[in-house]
């Protein structure tokens, strides 16, 4: 845990990221942490390991809008553990607190349209922080220009590294990419093989029309109509099952 | 952040209190002040005398008393007899000046409504005194600015509680003057009761 120097007894006082007040464990004085003038480095620990990230990707790939059996047929071409940087500024704009999230580099994540700080346990990123073998994407934009251009007075400013797994995969000879947020498990992707609704619509439409027709027929020829309905029930059920089944 | 000692803006004496209160009272020079925007601001106040018959646990409850000008431009009431504001507005027409009482202590919604309409409907008359005589003061939590915004709720409530169903009320309300008034109460199992 990071620490600050107690202004009274000079002992190191450990503090957690979210707090403003902390008690010195040696002299018990209450210390206020003033973040207005300092820039912080935070990192969010990985809560999703590689296996879980691939599993989460497969769950996402099995979604109804993804190509049929994408979860089974996608061939993994590379899974990488990374820390992605983003700036977070808390400002006092005319007495109202505002949060600004700004880009820290030229690298972008596919599918992450609005830059954000994902949910996570922010830890102070210093020499003692263990990145766990993740590649740290270095910010190539400085914090200072933002400080000068953002409105209001500073309350807190930080560079936040958030944990991601980038997954490259191949489907039908085409390369795609997805990103799994390793704190909350969210999956981002800009482009993915999709699944058409046509088969589903065909079953629904044909079944509906058939039952209307059979219903109308029932007034003149009851027995054949009922027989036809039985056939349609079985047909819709069977075809529906084949369309919905994905293994 | 900075911690400052709260001192009386008039005599610069340190304020001492047993209960947390946003209304700071200096018992040395009898000055009341608030710090809503950060800077100290003196508040005009008066303390009402307890009725000699008052029995039980005595408390002083703070009220913001707003001296307001209320102008009704048009109104529309369905059914019932059309009630004239003039019955309780001074001035004989639908418009005029009146005192509005807004409780400044932490009260539940029902009690808040009861006391605000009770005192606004019939302005209390009382002899005043110069100190609290060691009676407990209920802490003030409602800021002065909020009291001004709540004033029109009290006025519309008094209007709507009359016969008929209010449909439209086009009015303006201006606060000319604000005074803090401490009214005497006794605590009962049914809640605080006026001890004027």
């Amino acid at each position: 845990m990071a620490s600050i120097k107690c202004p009274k007894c000079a002992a190191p006082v450990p503090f957690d990221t979210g707090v403003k007040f902390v008690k010195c464990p040696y002299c018990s004085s209450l210390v206020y942490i003033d973040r207005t003038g300092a820039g912080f480095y935070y990192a969010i620990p990985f809560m999703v390991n590689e296996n879980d990230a691939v599993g989460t990707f497969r769950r996402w790939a099995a979604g109804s809008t993804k190509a049929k059996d994408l979860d089974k047929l996608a061939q993994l071409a590379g899974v990488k553990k990374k820390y992605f940087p983003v700036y977070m500024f808390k400002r006092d704009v005319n007495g109202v607190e505002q949060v600004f999230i700004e880009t820290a580099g030229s690298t972008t994540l596919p599918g992450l349209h609005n830059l954000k700080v994902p949910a996570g346990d922010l830890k102070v990123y210093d020499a003692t922080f263990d990145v766990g073998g993740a590649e740290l994407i270095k910010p190539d934009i400085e914090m200072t220009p933002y400080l000068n251009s953002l409105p209001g007075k500073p309350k807190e400013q930080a560079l936040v590294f958030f944990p991601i797994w980038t997954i490259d995969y191949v489907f039908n000879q085409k390369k795609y990419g997805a990103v799994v947020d390793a704190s909350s498990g969210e999956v981002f992707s800009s482009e993915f093989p999709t699944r058409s609704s046509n088969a589903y619509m065909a079953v629904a439409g044909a079944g509906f029309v058939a039952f209307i027709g059979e219903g109308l027929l029932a007034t003149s020829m009851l027995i054949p109509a009922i027989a036809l309905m039985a056939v349609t029930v079985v047909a819709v059920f069977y075809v529906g099952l084949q369309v919905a089944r994905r293994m | 952040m900075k911690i400052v000692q709260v001192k009386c803006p008039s005599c610069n004496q340190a304020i001492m209190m047993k209960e947390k209160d946003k209304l700071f009272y200096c018992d040395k020079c009898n000055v009341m002040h608030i710090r809503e925007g950060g800077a100290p601001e003196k508040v005009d106040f008066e303390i009402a005398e307890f009725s000699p018959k008052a029995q039980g646990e005595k408390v002083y409850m703070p009220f913001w008393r707003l001296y307001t000008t209320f102008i009704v431009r048009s109104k529309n009431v369905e059914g019932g007899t059309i009630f004239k504001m003039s019955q309780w507005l001074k001035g004989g027409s639908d418009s005029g000046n009146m005192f509005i009482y807004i409780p400044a202590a932490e009260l539940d919604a029902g009690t808040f409504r009861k006391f605000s309409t009770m005192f606004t409907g019939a302005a209390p008359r009382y002899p005043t005194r110069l100190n609290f005589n060691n009676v407990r003061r209920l802490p003030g939590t409602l800021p002065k600015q909020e009291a001004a915004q709540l004033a029109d709720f009290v006025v519309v409530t008094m209007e709507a509680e009359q016969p008929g169903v209010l449909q439209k009320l086009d009015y303006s309300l201006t606060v000319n003057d604000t005074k803090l008034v401490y009214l005497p109460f006794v605590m009962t199992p049914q809640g605080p009761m006026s001890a004027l």
Partner: protein
Amino acid sequence: MSDGISVGLNCPACGGAISMAEGENVVLCQYCSSVLAAEGDQGVHTVAFKNKTLKDAAMGASQHWWTHGLKARDLKTTGKIVESYPIYLPFWKTTTRVAGWVCGYEERRHTDQKGNVTVERIPKEVMVLQDFTFSEIACDPGDLGIRTMKNFMGETTFANFEEIPTFESTTSKDAAATRGLNDSLAKARANAHVPQVTLDTLKAFNKGLTLIYYPVWVVRYNYRDRMYMDTVDGVTGQVLSGRAPGDPLFQSLAMTGGTSVGGLIAAAGIIYAQSASDMRIALGAVAVGAIILFLTYRFFRHGSEIIQGEFKEKKSIASALKQVQQVGKALEGLR
């Protein structure tokens, strides 16, 4: 860490150490009873709820949840919990008092035996003086499926704070307070039940803003090589949100039911309309059939994953009904 960011808090009058919590702006010195005021950013009143759910209970609640609803039938035998751990999620909770009046009227249509329509106008005046509570998650909700607090009761303590990972608040408290005000005004207007408003004097006042750290269990489980997740309330032990695999059998059954019931209703309407020679009945019946078809189709198309909770992509029943209404309006235009 850098120096110069720690400020010692002592009573400026007697030098005694001050004990104060975040969000307090008036403090009494415990030694000399001086009244002290905090100037500047003094933070937000913060509380944390005690985590009362044990790991086994969280896992048990998840496994029980698997057996409910239209989830894969083999989930309880094939699904395997990989990990479960508690986290503290931050929420903004605002208390708002709404005061004012909503006046207006309600129109009721009466049709007498001769078919004459009379409109009765019932005037209404409704007083609102009520306290409302609003909550929203104070960080990005990600894929947790949680956006608001479901429970506000519980033991508050910071005792679990060290051992449970704490997700920090990263959204603006003032933006949350503004949303709290707007939300309570909207709720108050809805509660007043005045359909046609002629006078609205409602005002909302902020009575308090609290940052609440709420314990939530994250349960990750594996089903046929896919990783699913659900969350369990650390106070009440209930499943809050989650994703689970669906079952093609249920999807197909829904479609079979939807096409048959929808189609037969439409057909019955057409037949009845022919004998009564009123085309409106036929159109109405076809519309009802189409609505049933549409609702079951949605499940047929997207039922391969069952989701519960406040997810981004969740298409709620309410939004489905809204779509149905729009279809209905379009049909009305055709008549």
